[in-house]
C-alpha cells in the first residue's frame, strides 16, 4: 500500500453531492480537496453516440458494472439473501456524475410536513395512526430551514417550473426558468384532471425550457425533446448533470483534484477520528490521509462503506426505504400521440392525494402519492407490445397486429408514493457473497407493508377516474401491490441507512451531515433521509449538500 501526501478534505464519490460539496468548499476556502470517483470520466461529447436504446436503456451501459459488484436481497430476515444478478428495480450509477448523468431531471421539492412527519401525523390524527412496526421520525430540520437552499439549488440548475401549485410548499422566489413545452398527451391529461377538480401542474425539472446562465456563469441550452433522458446522458447539456453544471467550475478551481478509477474500500479511523481512506486504482492500493472525510457516494454505497469500515452506531442501516412507484393504468386512444417526442421530465403531475394534502381521518392509512403522466419519449423496444385486454397472447399474429395499432396510441399513468420506514426494512453486510475485490456485499431486507398497499389501492381508484374522463377506447389497471421485488423498475430512489436526526440516539448524522461518533466524517446524499417522500430526491440532496457546505468548518 502506497501512502500519499495528506490532504485537507477527501470526498468519496464524484456525483451530485460529492462534486457540489467540492465546488462549494473550494469556492469559499483554500482547503485542498481530493474527490475519488470509482468510475470513468464522462461528458456530453460521448453522449451523442449513446442514443442507442439497446446498449444504454437495456444493457445499462452507464450503470454500475453488476458483474463486479451488486447487492443481495431478501424480503424478510427469515429468508436467505441472494444476489441481485441483473439490475432491475433500481439502477445504480457509475462514473463521473453518477446517476445524476442518466436521470430524468424531475426536481419537485418535498412537501413541507415531510420533515416533521411524525409530529404532524401525531398532532392531526393521534399516535395510534402510526402504522405498526413503522419507525417514522422527524428529520431534525423544518421546511423553513431548507427553503433557502431549495431556492439556491434551483438557481444552480435553472429549474423550469410553474409557480402557484396549491399542493406544493411555499416558495420565497420564482422558478429560474418557465415550464418546458407541453406534449399532446400532457394536454389531454391536464384537461381531464382539471375537469375532475384536481390541480395538474408540470413537474419542476432540470431540463431547461430556455438557455440559462446560472450564478456560477455556467450556460446551458434549451431542451430538444429528443426523448433520450432516462438511462442516457444529455447530448446537448440541456438536462442538468454534474458534468455540465458543476464540472466546468471545478475544473477551474485549483484546490480541487478529481481522481477517476479510484475505488474507496475503507474509511480508516483512530479513536473516533477519521484519518483518511484506502482505495484501489488500476490494481494498486493507496492510503490517502485526510483531515476530513466526506462520504458522498450513492445511498447503498454510503451504507456499505460505513459497515465495511466498522464505523457504526446502532442506527446504521435502518430506515431503508424505496419510493413506491408503479404504472397504474395503461390505456388506448383512438388518435395517435407522437409519443417518441418528449423529455425525461415531460410530466404533468397531480399532488392532490400526496402526503397529507387530503384528510385521512376516515381512511385506514397515512400519507399518499402523486399521480404522473409521463411523456418521456417512448423508445420502441421497451414500449412495443401493450395491447387491450381482449388480446389473450403476447406473441403471434393477432397480438402483433393489435400491438402495431396500439403502439403510438398508448398512454400510461403512474403513481409515486411515499414509503414510510419500518424496523423490518434495513441493511447489513451479506454473510456469503462478495464483490470482485472480496469485500462483502450489502444486504437489503425489504418488503412492502399494508400502508403502501392501501395507498396504492386508493391512488389506483383516483387514477381510474381520470382515465375514464380521458375518453379512452379501453384501459388496463395494474394489479394491487403485493411484495417488493428487485426486477421491475420502480425508481433509483432508495434511501436511508445513514439517517439524519436531532440526536445520536435516533440517527447516524446530524442535519448537516456530520457523523455523531466520528465528527470529522460527513455523509451526504439520500442515505441521510429518515423517510422516503413521494417526490424525486435530487433537489433535496442538493439543498442538504448546500446546507452542509455552509456549516462545514473552515479553519
Amino acid at each position: 500500500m502506497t501512502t500519499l501526501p495528506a490532504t485537507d478534505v477527501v470526498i468519496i464519490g464524484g456525483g451530485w453531492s460529492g462534486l457540489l460539496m467540492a465546488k462549494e468548499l473550494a469556492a469559499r476556502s483554500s482547503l485542498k480537496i481530493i474527490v475519488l470517483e470509482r468510475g470513468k470520466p464522462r461528458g456530453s461529447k460521448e453522449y451523442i453516440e449513446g442514443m442507442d436504446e439497446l446498449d444504454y436503456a437495456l444493457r445499462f451501459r452507464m450503470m454500475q458494472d453488476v458483474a463486479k459488484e451488486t447487492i443481495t436481497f431478501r424480503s424478510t430476515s427469515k429468508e436467505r439473501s441472494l444476489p441481485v444478478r441483473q439490475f432491475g428495480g433500481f439502477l445504480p450509477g457509475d462514473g463521473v456524475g453518477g446517476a445524476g448523468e442518466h436521470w430524468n431531471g424531475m426536481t419537485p421539492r418535498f412537501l413541507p410536513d415531510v420533515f416533521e412527519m411524525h409530529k404532524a401525523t401525531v398532532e392531526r390524527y393521534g399516535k395510534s395512526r402510526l402504522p405498526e412496526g413503522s419507525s417514522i421520525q422527524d428529520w431534525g430540520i423544518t421546511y423553513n430551514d431548507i427553503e433557502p437552499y431549495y431556492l439556491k439549488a434551483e438557481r444552480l440548475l435553472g429549474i423550469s417550473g410553474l409557480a402557484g401549485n396549491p399542493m406544493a410548499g411555499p416558495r420565497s422566489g420564482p422558478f429560474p426558468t418557465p415550464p418546458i413545452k407541453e406534449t399532446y398527451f400532457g394536454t389531454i391529461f391536464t384537461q381531464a384532471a382539471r375537469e375532475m377538480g384536481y390541480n395538474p401542474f408540470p413537474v419542476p425539472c432540470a431540463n431547461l425550457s430556455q438557455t440559462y446562465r446560472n450564478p456560477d456563469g455556467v450556460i446551458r441550452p434549451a431542451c430538444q425533446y429528443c426523448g433520450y433522458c432516462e438511462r442516457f446522458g444529455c447530448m446537448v447539456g440541456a438536462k442538468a448533470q454534474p458534468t455540465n453544471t458543476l464540472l466546468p467550475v471545478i475544473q477551474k478551481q485549483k484546490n480541487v483534484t478529481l481522481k477517476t478509477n479510484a475505488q474507496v474500500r475503507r474509511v480508516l479511523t483512530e479513536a473516533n477520528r477519521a484519518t483518511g481512506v484506502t482505495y484501489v486504482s488500476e490494481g494498486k492500493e493507496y492510503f490517502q490521509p485526510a483531515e476530513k472525510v466526506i462520504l458522498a457516494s450513492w445511498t447503498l454505497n454510503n451504507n456499505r462503506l460505513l459497515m465495511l469500515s466498522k464505523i457504526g452506531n446502532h442506527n446504521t442501516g435502518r430506515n431503508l426505504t424505496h419510493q413506491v412507484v408503479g404504472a397504474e393504468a395503461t390505456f388506448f386512444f383512438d388518435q395517435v400521440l407522437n409519443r417518441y417526442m418528449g423529455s425525461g421530465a415531460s410530466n404533468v403531475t397531480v399532488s392532490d392525494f400526496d402526503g397529507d394534502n387530503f384528510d385521512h381521518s376516515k381512511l385506514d392509512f397515512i400519507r399518499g402519492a402523486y399521480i404522473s403522466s409521463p411523456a418521456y419519449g417512448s423508445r420502441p423496444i421497451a414500449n412495443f407490445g401493450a395491447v387491450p385486454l381482449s388480446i389473450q397472447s403476447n406473441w403471434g399474429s393477432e397480438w402483433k397486429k393489435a400491438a402495431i395499432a396500439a403502439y403510438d396510441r398508448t398512454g400510461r399513468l403512474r403513481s409515486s408514493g411515499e414509503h414510510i420506514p419500518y424496523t423490518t426494512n434495513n441493511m447489513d453486510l451479506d454473510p456469503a457473497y462478495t464483490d470482485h475485490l472480496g469485500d462483502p456485499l450489502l444486504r437489503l431486507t425489504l418488503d412492502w407493508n399494508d400502508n403502501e398497499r392501501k395507498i396504492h389501492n386508493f391512488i389506483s381508484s383516483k387514477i381510474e377516474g381520470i382515465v375514464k374522463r380521458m375518453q379512452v377506447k379501453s384501459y388496463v389497471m395494474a394489479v394491487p401491490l403485493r411484495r417488493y421485488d428487485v426486477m421491475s423498475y420502480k425508481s433509483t430512489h432508495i434511501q436511508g441507512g445513514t439517517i439524519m436526526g436531532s440526536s445520536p440516539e435516533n440517527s447516524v448524522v446530524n442535519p448537516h451531515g456530520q457523523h455523531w461518533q466520528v465528527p470529522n466524517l460527513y455523509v451526504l446524499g439520500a442515505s441521510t433521509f429518515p423517510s422516503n417522500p413521494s417526490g424525486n430526491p435530487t433537489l433535496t440532496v442538493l439543498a442538504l449538500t448546500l446546507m452542509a457546505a455552509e456549516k462545514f468548518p473552515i479553519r
Partner: protein
Amino acid sequence: MRRRQFFTLPAGGALLVYSLDGQPTVSTSKAERKVALKFFTAEEALIVEAATSRIFPTDESGPGAAEAGVTVYIDRQLAGPYGRDRYRFTQAPFVEGSREQGYQGASNPRQIYRAALKGLVDLPRLEGAQQDLRLRAIENTPFFGLLRQHTLEGMFCDPMHGGNRDLIGWQLIGFPGPYMSWANDIEKHFGEPHRPRPQSLSQILNRKITPWEEQEP
C-alpha cells in the same frame, strides 16, 4: 476453430411497409444475403428463424422477424459479451430463490439457447399451427422469455446491432429513430401522426457507430 456456418436472409424487395400515416415505403433489400454465423450452427439458426417468425410473423399486418434479421441479431448478441453473461453477477453459489429475487440460474444465455434448441430440432419442418402449439407448450420457460424479448430487440434495435434491417421495424410502427431535436415539432401535430422518414444513429450522425458488443473484448 469451428467451420464457418451461414444463414440466408430473405429478400425484402417486394415488401411494402405501411407506417401509421398510411405512406408506403419500399424496403430496400432486393436480394437474398448470406450471413456468416458467429454463434449458432446453421441448423440452430433455422430453428430460431422458425420460432421468431411465429412470435413476430410476416403476415397481412406487415413484415416480421424474418425481414428484420432477428436471427442475425440474436446470433451476434449470443456471440458477444451479453451471451457469455458479461452483464450479470455470476458468483456462486447459485441457489433457487423466491419470485421476488429474480433469475438465479447458473446458465448464461448461450447455454439456455443451446439446451432449449436441442428440444426443437423438428420445428422448421412443422406447419405454422403446429409450430405455435410447440411454442405454447414452452411459453412460460426462461428460454421462451428470452426468445420473445430478443425478438422485440431484433425488430426494433438500431440496425448497428444486426436487427431492424433497413429500419423495417421502425417503419412498421412509425418510430423515426434518434433524431436530435423535436423542439419545433412537439407542440404541433396534436392528434395527427407526424412520421418523418426513420433514420439510424449512424445515418443521423453520418459516421459509423460501434455497438457495445463489438467494443467489449
